[in-house]
C-alpha cells in the first residue's frame, strides 16, 4: 500500500518536471521572439556591395573621371597560421616592429574580434598587390579586398570636379546610418554637390556565416538582397580643351578665369590658379598631399573663381554706363571733359592721356576715369531721389540684378557673395547724411570697397552679351543623358536695365578691342567686345582684369580673366581671354604663337619657377 503511494509520488515528480520543461519551452519558442532575432544576428552577415561611382565627362563627351580599383589588405587574426613574418614584412614593405605595432593597434580598435577581418593596410600599391597575390597562399588569414577609387584622366579642372574622401563620423551620424566607416563621399566640387547622383545606391547581400564568421551560403537564396545601383554619368558644361589651354595660360600666375556660354549659363571653363593635380587626392597618400596643399602659401585649394572677391576696376564702367542710362542721367551723347582726370574740390582721380571731351561710346573705348566719376556722381547725387541714400540704394538694387554682392547659385560648393557695400555701410563710416557721391567716388571706376568674384564678372559679361538677362551659371550639363537637370538653370534673370540701353555700351566695348585699350586682344574675323580693368589693391601691384564676349552678335562665349598683381588689364588678362575665345570659337589657338608663348612663360608668382609646377611634379600616376 505504502509502496503504491510512493510510486504515484515518483510519477508525480516526473510529470511535474516534464510540465515545468514544457512551460519553459513554450516561453522560449512561442512567446519570446527575441531568440529568433538573436539567431539571425548569429548567422546573418550583411555585406555591402559598393556601386561604381558615376563618371564625369566634359561637354563633348570627353571622359574626365573614371574609377580605378584599390586594394585594401585585411587580416583575420584567428586564421593566421605559420606566417613567415619576415617574408610578409618584405612584401608589404614594413619592418618587423611596424608589424607588431600594427597588430597592437588593430587589437585596440573598436569592434575588434579575433575571428573578424580587420584592415591591416589600406590601399596597397598595384605592385605590392601583384606580389602579394602570388604569395597569398603563404599568408593564411590575410585577404585583399577590392574597392574603387577615382582616377583622373587629365590634370585639369581639379577645383570643379573636387575630390572624394572617407566619411567622417559626423557624416555617418547625419546620413541615418547609410554611410559606414571607410565609405567614400564627395568632399568638394561636383563630387560634393552631386554626391546623390554620382554616389549611386549601395546594395546589400545577406550571407550566412558560421560561428567563426566563415561564409556558408546565401540567406534564403538572396531573397532579401538588394542590387547596387551604379552612380549616374554626368556631363559637365566645361570644354576640356578650353580648360586645358586656360590652365596652361594661367600657369605660374595667381588668378581666375571663368568662361560662360551666355545663352545657357553653362560654364565653359573655370580656372583657379594655382591649381593642383586631382590625382593627388587618390590613393593612400591623399592625406599627406592634402596637408601639403593646405600649407602651401599660394593656397592652391582655394577656389578663387567662385569665392575670391576682387575690385573689378574699369570693367565696372560698363555696368555704370548701363545703370546711368536706366536712371536717365546718362545718354549716349553725354560728354564730359577730361583734364588729366577728375577734379572736384580737393578731390582728384587721375586719368591717362586721350582725346577729350568724349561721348559715352568713346569714353568706354578709352576707359576715361573722369567720365565715369561724373557718371557715378550723377547717379548717386540724382536729384530725382530725396536723399543720397535712396539714390545709392537704387544703384545697389541695379547691381544686385546683375548678380553682384550675392551668391548666384552655382552648383558648386563654396561660392562667395563678393561685396557691394550698402548705404548703411557708409552710414556707419561717415554717419547718416554725411556722405554723398564724391565721398565714395572710387566706386564709379570699380575701386574702393567693391569686391566681385570672377564668376560674377563673367556672369555680368554674359548679361551684357544677352542684352539684359543672365541664366544662373552652372557646371552640370546633363545627368545620364538628361539635359538641363535643374529647371532653375533655365530661368532668364532680367536685369533692371532696359535692353535698349545695351547697344551703345556694346559698341564701346567693341571699340575697346578694335582700337581701344585692349587692342592686343583683337582677332581678325571675330567681333570681340571687351573691357580692360586695372584694379588697385592693397596687396601689391594692380590686378590685371579683362572681361569680354564674342562674337558681338549672337555671342557664344563670355569670359572674365583676373590675374593677381600683374599690372595692366591689357598686358595679361586681355591676351589670355583672347586666346581662349579663339580656342573656343575656332577650336585652335595657333595664329599668334608669340602671344601664346609669352603668356605661358610669364611668371607672376614672384618666385623662381621650380623645375615644374606643383601640379606636374606629382603627376607620375
Amino acid at each position, binding site marked *: 500500500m505504502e509502496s503504491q503511494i510512493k510510486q504515484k509520488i515518483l510519477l508525480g515528480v516526473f510529470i511535474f518536471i516534464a510540465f515545468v520543461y514544457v512551460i519553459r519551452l513554450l516561453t*522560449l519558442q512561442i512567446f519570446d521572439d527575441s531568440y529568433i532575432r538573436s539567431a539571425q544576428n548569429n548567422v546573418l552577415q550583411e555585406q555591402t556591395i559598393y556601386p561604381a561611382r558615376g563618371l564625369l565627362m566634359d561637354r563633348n563627351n570627353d571622359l574626365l573621371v573614371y574609377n580605378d580599383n584599390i586594394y585594401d589588405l585585411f587580416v583575420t587574426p584567428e586564421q593566421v597560421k605559420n606566417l613567415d613574418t619576415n617574408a610578409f614584412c618584405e612584401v608589404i614593405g614594413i619592418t618587423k616592429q611596424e608589424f607588431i605595432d600594427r597588430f597592437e593597434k588593430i587589437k585596440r580598435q573598436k569592434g575588434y574580434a579575433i575571428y573578424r577581418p580587420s584592415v591591416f593596410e589600406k590601399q596597397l600599391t598595384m605592385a605590392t598587390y601583384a606580389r602579394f597575390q602570388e604569395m597569398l597562399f603563404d599568408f593564411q588569414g590575410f585577404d585583399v579586398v577590392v574597392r574603387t577609387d577615382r582616377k583622373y584622366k587629365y590634370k585639369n579642372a581639379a577645383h570643379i570636379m573636387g575630390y572624394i574622401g572617407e566619411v567622417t563620423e559626423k557624416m555617418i551620424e547625419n546620413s541615418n546610418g547609410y554611410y559606414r566607416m571607410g565609405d567614400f563621399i564627395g568632399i568638394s566640387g561636383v563630387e560634393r554637390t552631386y554626391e546623390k547622383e554620382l554616389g549611386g545606391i549601395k546594395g546589400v547581400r545577406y550571407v550566412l556565416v558560421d560561428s567563426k564568421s566563415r561564409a556558408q551560403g546565401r540567406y534564403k537564396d538572396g531573397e532579401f538582397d538588394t542590387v547596387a545601383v551604379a552612380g549616374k554619368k554626368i556631363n559637365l558644361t566645361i570644354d576640356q580643351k578650353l580648360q586645358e589651354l586656360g590652365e596652361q595660360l594661367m600657369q605660374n600666375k595667381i588668378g581666375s578665369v571663368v568662361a560662360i556660354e551666355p545663352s545657357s549659363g553653362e560654364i565653359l571653363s573655370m580656372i583657379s590658379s594655382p591649381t593642383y593635380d586631382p590625382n593627388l587626392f587618390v590613393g593612400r597618400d591623399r592625406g599627406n598631399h592634402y596637408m601639403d596643399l593646405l600649407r602651401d602659401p599660394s593656397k592652391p585649394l582655394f577656389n578663387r573663381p567662385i569665392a575670391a572677391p576682387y575690385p573689378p576696376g574699369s570693367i565696372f564702367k560698363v555696368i555704370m554706363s548701363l545703370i546711368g542710362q536706366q536712371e536717365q542721367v546718362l545718354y549716349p551723347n553725354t560728354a564730359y571733359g577730361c583734364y588729366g582726370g577728375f577734379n572736384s574740390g580737393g578731390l582728384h582721380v587721375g586719368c591717362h592721356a586721350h582725346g577729350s571731351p568724349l561721348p559715352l561710346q568713346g569714353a568706354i573705348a578709352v576707359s576715361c576715369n573722369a567720365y565715369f566719376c561724373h557718371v557715378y556722381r550723377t547717379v548717386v547725387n540724382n536729384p530725382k531721389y530725396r536723399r543720397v541714400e535712396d539714390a545709392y540704394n537704387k544703384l545697389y538694387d541695379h547691381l544686385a540684378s546683375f548678380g553682384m554682392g550675392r551668391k548666384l547659385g552655382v552648383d558648386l560648393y563654396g561660392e562667395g557673395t563678393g561685396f557691394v557695400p550698402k548705404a548703411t555701410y557708409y552710414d556707419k563710416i561717415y554717419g547718416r547724411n554725411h556722405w554723398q557721391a564724391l565721398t565714395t567716388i572710387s566706386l564709379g571706376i570699380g575701386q574702393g570697397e567693391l569686391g566681385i568674384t570672377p564668376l560674377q564678372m563673367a556672369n555680368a559679361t554674359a548679361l551684357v552679351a544677352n542684352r539684359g538677362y543672365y541664366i544662373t551659371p552652372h557646371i552640370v550639363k546633363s545627368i545620364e543623358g538628361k539635359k538641363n537637370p535643374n529647371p532653375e538653370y533655365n530661368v532668364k534673370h532680367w536685369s533692371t536695365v532696359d535692353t535698349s540701353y545695351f547697344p551703345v555700351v556694346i559698341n564701346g566695348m567693341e571699340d575697346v578691342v578694335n582700337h581701344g585699350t585692349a587692342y592686343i586682344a583683337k582677332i581678325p574675323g571675330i567681333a570681340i567686345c571687351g573691357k580692360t580693368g586695372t584694379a588697385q589693391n592693397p596687396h601689391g601691384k594692380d590686378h590685371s582684369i579683362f572681361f569680354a564676349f564674342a562674337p558681338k552678335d549672337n555671342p557664344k562665349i563670355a569670359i572674365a580673366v583676373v590675374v593677381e598683381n600683374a599690372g595692366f588689364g591689357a598686358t595679361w588678362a586681355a591676351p589670355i581671354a583672347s586666346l581662349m575665345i579663339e580656342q573656343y570659337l575656332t577650336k585652335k589657338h595657333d595664329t599668334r604663337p608669340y602671344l601664346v608663348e609669352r603668356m605661358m612663360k610669364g611668371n607672376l608668382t614672384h618666385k623662381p619657377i621650380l623645375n615644374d609646377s606643383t601640379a606636374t611634379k606629382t603627376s607620375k600616376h
Partner: protein
Amino acid sequence: MTQQQPKPASIDWLVLTLYCVFVIAGLLCIYASVYSETNPDIYDMDKNYGKQLLWIVVSAFLGLLILLVDEKLFYAFAYGFYGITILMLLATFAIGAEIKGSSSWIRIGSFQIQPAEFAKFGTALALAKYLSGYNIDFKNWKVKAISMAIIALPMAIILLQNETGSALVFASFSLVLYREGLPGWLLVVGVLLAVLGVMALLIKPLYIIIGLAVIAIAFLAMVRRTQLLVFLTIGIVIFASAYVSSIDYVFENVMQAHQRTRINVLLGKEVDLKGAGYNVQQSLIAIGSGGPIGKGFLEGTQNKFRFVPEQSTDFIFCTIGEEFGFLGSLLFISLYMLFLWRLMVMAERQRNKFNRIYGYSLVSILFFHFLINIGMTLGLMPVIGIPLPFFSYGGSALLSFTILLFIFIRLDANRVNELKSFE
C-alpha cells in the same frame, strides 16, 4: 529445467520500439548537427554520426545477446559486475587518457570508453542484489548504511576523476532507496538542504544564519513551547548554520575555478557570455529560434553553423528544439515520459525484489539524465556535462544505457517464470 528463453510475446515491445525510435532519432540529430551540404554521406566513419551508427550496430548486437542469455546470470554475477566496473574505474588512474580536463577515459584503438558509464549498471545490479537478499530489512540502519556505501564507492572514485556530472548521476539511486522504504521526509530534508545550499551560494552565510534564528524565534513564540521543542529548534538552527558555512567554505576553497564559474553563471551572479554562459546562451538561442514548428530537418542554422558547443553530445536537444520547434520538443518530452512510465509499470509488476529494484534503478538513472540534460539546455540547471540517454553522441554512453535497459527487458520477459525459479 530447460533454459528459459524469452518468448517473443513476453518481451515488452513498447519499450523496445521506443528504444529504437530514440536511437534512430538521436542518430539523425547527430547527423544534423554536423551536416554539411558538401558531404551528406551518413556512413562516413570520419564523422561522429558514422561512428555513432557503428555504435548503434554494436549496441543492437549486444542487446540481442543479453536477450538470449539466462537471466539468472545477472543475479548470480551482480557483485562480479560491480567489482569489474570498480576495477575499471580504478584502472583509469593508471592507464587513463586525459580528455578535456578529465582523466576518466580508457583508450582502446581509436575509440575511448568511459568506465563511469558502465559503473551505473554495475551499481544498479549490486544494489538490487544486496537489497533483495534474505533477511534484509531496509528499516535496519546497517542495511541503509551498506546500501549507501554501495552507491557512494563508485561515486567517490568518479568525483576524483573530475567527472562531477557522472558522479551526480549516482544521487538518482536515492529515488530507488525511497521506493524501497527510505522515509519520504529524508528526501524532503535532502531537497531542503539543497535549497539551503543554493541560498548559501547566493547570499552571505551570516545573513542566512541570522534569518534562520529569526524564523526559529518567531516559531517558538507562536507555538506552545516544550523543552524538547526548544532544544530541537536550537539544534536545527545550529546544524543548518554549520551546513551553510561549510557549503560556503567548500565553494570558495575546495571547488575549482571552472566549477565556481558554472555555478555562478547558473545562479545569475555572473554573466559570462564567452565562457560557461556562452553555451547556455547559444543553446537558448538555438531552441528559442525554433518557434512553434521548427526550421525543418537540416535547416537549423545555429546547430549547422556550430554556434552551440558540444551540440552532438551534451546539447543534442538543441537540434530537436531548433529543427522541430515546440511541437517536436513536446513530442520528445511526451515520448520520454511514456518511456519512463512504461518502465516504472514494468518495475512494479515484477514479482521479485531484485528485478524491481533493478528496474527502479534504471528509471531513476534515466530520469536524472533527462532532468539535468534538458534542464541544462533550457537554462534551468547548471551546465553539468551528462549525456541525454540514447540521443547523445558517444559510444560508452550508448552501450551502457543499452546494457542497462536490455538487462531489464530480459528480466521482465521472464517474470512469468519467476515464481518457479526463486520463491
